[in-house]
């Protein structure tokens, strides 16, 4: 296959600034040279190339929108383009950057004390330290408000008890942002360092999706942390939900990257694969699939671009992020499935990136608010009626 040249049917390139284009191209080149040559072997082995953390840090992708602390201070469209290019590589790569930026650096930046910011943000930005985010529990996924993890005040600190599940980079993280309820029933955020007695991690094996990504369980058993490790400036579910809103924004962009990778590959394959004496791209049913893909990708690109412009203007509503996450992951998953179909038998082997993206996107469809949950968020927003059953 020829080198990836981007997917842009509507001249959306022209809506980007020079800086935004240069940033996208820098990340695209990096993914091409440093990540794509090694992703298949990591996918097979079920490992994440952790040695890339400092390299990603050097490139400047972690906390790229933050001001100060060694961060690049980019706008949100540039940040979105970074996520798009990383997921063009693999959803696991984008997840690693999403978690570090949106779920670890963001809460420390937005809710943390000056000491917490000074200590953690610079080393998380360089990739010298890795972070993870613990919200989901074995019995509480879409309904995090019912979490069981508890933080009890005890002497000069807090004692944490509970379990968090499906935590990206859990076992390699130097610091975990953990959400737990205090005795007042309110949710607060706590920073738990690796090696703290009573804090252990276990990796989840047997995954058929996100194989080139580390997914762990975090267990807290009478885990004592100092008072100073509590995030002082947020209380309640809006803390973790604010983080998820950041990460979902990145996912909406990332999914476009996954879809672009599958479309570009399937298009080239269809033009080269000869059956019945002509390229399969010449058949109407194949063309129909490719046309569906490029149309949906174009719509998805415009959706996230406007989403980014709204975010930069400060007028973004979380429900708008829900729409982009819901739609873009769905069309990316459908694009991957159609691409798999166009590749025929070749579509199931890892010589081609399609099956990897397709399986990854099943996870992306579920995490950070499932497709259905986002539909209900938008439904509540437009009808004024809450379908979650809360308060009914």
């Amino acid at each position: 296959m020829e080198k990836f040249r981007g997917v842009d049917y509507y001249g959306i390139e022209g809506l980007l600034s020079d800086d935004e284009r240069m940033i996208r191209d820098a990340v695209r080149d990096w993914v091409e040279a440093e990540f794509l040559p090694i992703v298949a072997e990591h996918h097979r082995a079920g490992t994440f190339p952790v040695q890339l953390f400092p390299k990603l840090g050097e490139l400047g992708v972690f906390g790229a929108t933050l001001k100060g602390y060694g961060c690049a201070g980019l706008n949100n469209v540039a940040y979105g383009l970074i996520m798009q290019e990383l997921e063009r590589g693999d959803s696991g790569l984008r997840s690693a950057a999403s978690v570090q930026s949106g779920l670890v650096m963001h809460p420390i930046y937005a809710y943390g004390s000056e000491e917490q910011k000074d200590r953690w943000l610079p080393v998380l930005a360089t990739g010298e330290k890795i972070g993870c985010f613990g919200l989901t529990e074995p019995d509480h996924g879409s309904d995090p408000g019912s979490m069981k993890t508890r933080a009890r005040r005890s002497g000069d600190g807090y004692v944490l008890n509970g379990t968090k599940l499906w935590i990206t980079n859990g076992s390699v993280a130097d610091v975990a942002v953990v959400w737990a309820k205090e005795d007042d029933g309110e949710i607060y955020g706590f920073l738990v360092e690796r090696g703290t007695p009573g804090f252990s991690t276990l990796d989840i094996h047997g995954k058929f999706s996100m194989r080139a990504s580390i997914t762990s369980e975090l267990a807290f058993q009478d885990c004592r942390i100092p008072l100073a490790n509590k995030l002082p400036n947020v209380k309640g579910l809006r803390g973790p939900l604010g983080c998820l809103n950041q990460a979902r924004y990145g996912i909406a962009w990332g999914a476009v990257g996954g879809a672009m990778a599958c479309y570009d590959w399937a298009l080239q394959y269809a033009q080269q694969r000869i059956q019945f004496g002509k390229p399969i791209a010449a058949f109407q049913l194949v063309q129909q699939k490719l046309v569906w893909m490029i149309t949906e990708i174009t719509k998805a690109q415009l959706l996230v671009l406007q989403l980014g412009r709204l975010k930069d203007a400060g007028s973004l509503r979380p429900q708008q992020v829900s729409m982009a996450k819901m739609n873009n992951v769905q069309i990316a998953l459908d694009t991957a499935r159609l691409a798999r179909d166009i590749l025929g038998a070749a579509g199931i082997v890892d010589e081609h990136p399609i099956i990897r993206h397709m399986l990854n996107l099943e996870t992306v469809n579920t995490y950070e608010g499932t497709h259905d949950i986002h539909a209900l968020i938008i439904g509540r927003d437009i009808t004024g009626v809450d379908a979650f059953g809360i308060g009914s």
Partner: protein
Amino acid sequence: MKILVAVKQVPDTATQVKISSDPKAIDTAGITWIVSPYDEFAIEEALRIKEKRGQGEVVAVTLGPDRAKETLRSALAMGCDRAIHVNDPALANADTMTTARALAAVVKQEAPQLVLCGRQAIDDDAGAVGAQLAEVLGWPCASWIMEETIDADAKTVRVGRQVEGGLEVFDIPLPAVLSAQKGLNEPRYPTLKGIMGAKKKEIKDVKASDLGLSSITPELSITALEALPARPPGRIIPGDVKDAVKELVRSLREDAKAI
């Protein structure tokens, strides 16, 4: 130490080049432009020299139309301190000698102790500008260098240049012109902070008249561009081996005139 790096904007290596309706030019529609890869080695080496010496200035220069500014922005994003854009319609179809004369005028104004460039630009593959620039300036030149070491007082540079089966090592007095071969270094990626920081760096626009180039007389002009002829299809000689070999030998002798 002040270093000037000469760079050129070229079509991306994945571009399928087409000849335009003007048979002397290529069709530039839809082309993605990049910094010529050998020039990236030159930029990287200049930055390393500055970093190693702990002080100095790296100035990127290019000749080209408005779009060539992107190339200078890439150089600034990698870490060059400032840039000079020689942008004049009078130089639109500059041949290598004209380019060398214009660069020489920039060098005279800037007075660097070293000029670095790529061994050739990957568009026309002429590979001439570095040596011609040195000739116009009356400076020594080493092309296709694989390594360089500058002495402590920046009086001489020891270079290793690639020759068949080994390295040719020279000591050259500075100022000099060096052209970079692949293998000299591994160019860094422009970092995202570097890209944002590049906005604040100066790109000076220069016209031919600012360089005192009153009459521009190219030494070479392009008569026409031609696409490579399509490769003729292969031929399978049927029949049993004995006859097929006979026919193959006859064909190689009489049709292809290869033996």
